[in-house]
């Protein structure tokens, strides 16, 4: 197993600016191995930018981060070998079968030819896609595509998994299936999971630690239960979210409604 003392992810003053816009502002986080971490925040809070920096897709403007013990700027190749990434948008090729998608990525990751067939079958079985492996992905349901994307991210057995809005657009059953897989990965393999979401239920159900991000800054970090007691007795995570992110001039209900409407499925139909 991973040494539990070393943090899986550690950022210090991590920042990203786009022109005059500060998308991520001096983010300092420490995330233990084997935990499930949820980054919460409304649209435009900087969640995706944070994930892009941690997965080496986007260089930071200032500050830095270590992922799996490797520097994201100086050792991007090592970071890439240590992480699996499930983007928010669809990332499986629709005009290939599930098996073919996995095959291409096995080769891109340099998984040896004597092991990759077996490895592909393992992840297919784990994600419950064995029967559909030779079907074109464009015929998959939204939930199946999501499971395939997670399978793709697991192929090289990364100790850290990044998921950007993993359950957007999924029906409740497909969503729960994804959650179960996350928990199983954490429990059996000690995989560290970093996910973004704006679904409070998901964060509450799944995450050991959540951070609430708003306008590029972390407003609060802690286990969901702790954050709830911080805001008030009987508070839900929704209340916590509202407390830390709403503009004070806004009515809480109105804001929450707006968030709810806007989070309609952009992906997967």
């Amino acid at each position: 197993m991973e040494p539990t003392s070393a943090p899986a992810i550690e950022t210090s003053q991590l920042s990203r600016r786009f022109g005059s816009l500060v998308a991520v502002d001096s983010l300092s986080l420490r995330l233990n191995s084997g935990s499930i971490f949820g980054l919460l925040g409304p649209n435009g809070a900087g969640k995706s930018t944070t994930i892009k920096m941690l997965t080496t897709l986007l260089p930071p403007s200032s500050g830095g981060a270590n992922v799996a013990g490797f520097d994201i700027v100086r050792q991007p190749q090592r970071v890439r070998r240590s992480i699996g990434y499930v983007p928010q948008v669809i990332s499986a090729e629709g005009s290939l079968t599930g098996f073919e998608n996995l095959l291409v990525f096995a080769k891109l990751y340099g998984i040896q030819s004597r092991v990759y067939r077996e490895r592909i079958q393992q992840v297919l079985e784990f994600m419950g896609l064995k029967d559909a492996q030779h079907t074109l992905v464009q015929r998959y349901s939204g939930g199946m595509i999501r499971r395939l994307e997670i399978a793709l991210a697991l192929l090289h057995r990364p100790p850290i998994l990044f998921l950007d809005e993993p359950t957007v657009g999924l029906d409740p059953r497909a969503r729960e299936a994804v959650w179960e897989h996350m928990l199983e990965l954490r429990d059996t393999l000690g995989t560290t999971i970093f996910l973004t979401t704006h679904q409070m239920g998901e964060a509450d159900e799944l995450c050991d630690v959540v951070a609430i991000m708003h306008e590029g800054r972390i407003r609060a970090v802690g286990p969901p239960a702790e954050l709830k007691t911080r805001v008030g007795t009987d508070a839900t995570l929704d209340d916590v979210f509202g407390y830390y992110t709403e503009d004070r001039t806004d009515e809480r209900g109105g804001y929450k409604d707006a968030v709810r409407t806007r989070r309609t499925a952009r992906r997967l139909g």
Partner: protein
Amino acid sequence: MLSEPVVQPADWVEANPFFDFLRQTMAMVEAELRKLRHDQFELLSRAVQPAIWLVVFGRVFSHLREIPTGGIPYLDFMAPGILAQSVLFVAVFFGVTLIWERDLGILQKFLVSPAYRLALVLGKALSAGIRALPQAAMVYVLALLMGVHVRLNPTAVAAALVFIVLGAAVFSTLSLIIACLVKTRQRFMGVNQLLIMPLFFGSNAIYPLEIMPPWLHRISAMNPLTYMVDALRTVMLSGGHSVYGLGFDLLVQAVLLIVLLGVATKLYPKVIY
């Protein structure tokens, strides 16, 4: 199942970087081949345009005896030009797949993988070559049916293959660079419409450069398509001869490809910013 502990897997041992690079490049090409196998409709539909050029334009223009072709029938003269054109058309729109893959998350997945950036870009360039091959075959068949004096000995066909793939790689990498710069589908299509007509008509594809006004002649002599056509005219036709020399044609295309690959590799990861 997945029950082995997630320590750094043993198969991470750094293999030979060169073999890694080759394997990653071939993985991109394999993906393209497999996509083509699942959807052959596109191949058929794309064969229509060169057929129209050869059958309509070619037939009509062969009745004009005005175009100096170096002693070969006009239809012979233009067949390699149409072959180059069909490769150009496939390749020059290939960059849109980059924007497509970026709008989906496929590009992000490629970039988060440890694959060499150059392998990803070269893999795409060769994929465009693969896409161009069935069309090229179609032009060969049409040309044969129409009585063009096509060279069918294996060396000549193999040489044609090299120039087809090389030309497709050049123009698809150019297309990839445009996609990286303009970033949206609409602008990409706009730029390409601007580009494609001058590239085709400012070349020796359907008439020799000698009949052009001097200013256009000079520009066309810098058009990479001119060298592709020159090479194809030499290796595809039994009466064909090269104006610039096959070696020079090859050099121009190869050097250009290396430069374009360098630029594309630099720009490629930035398209998602």
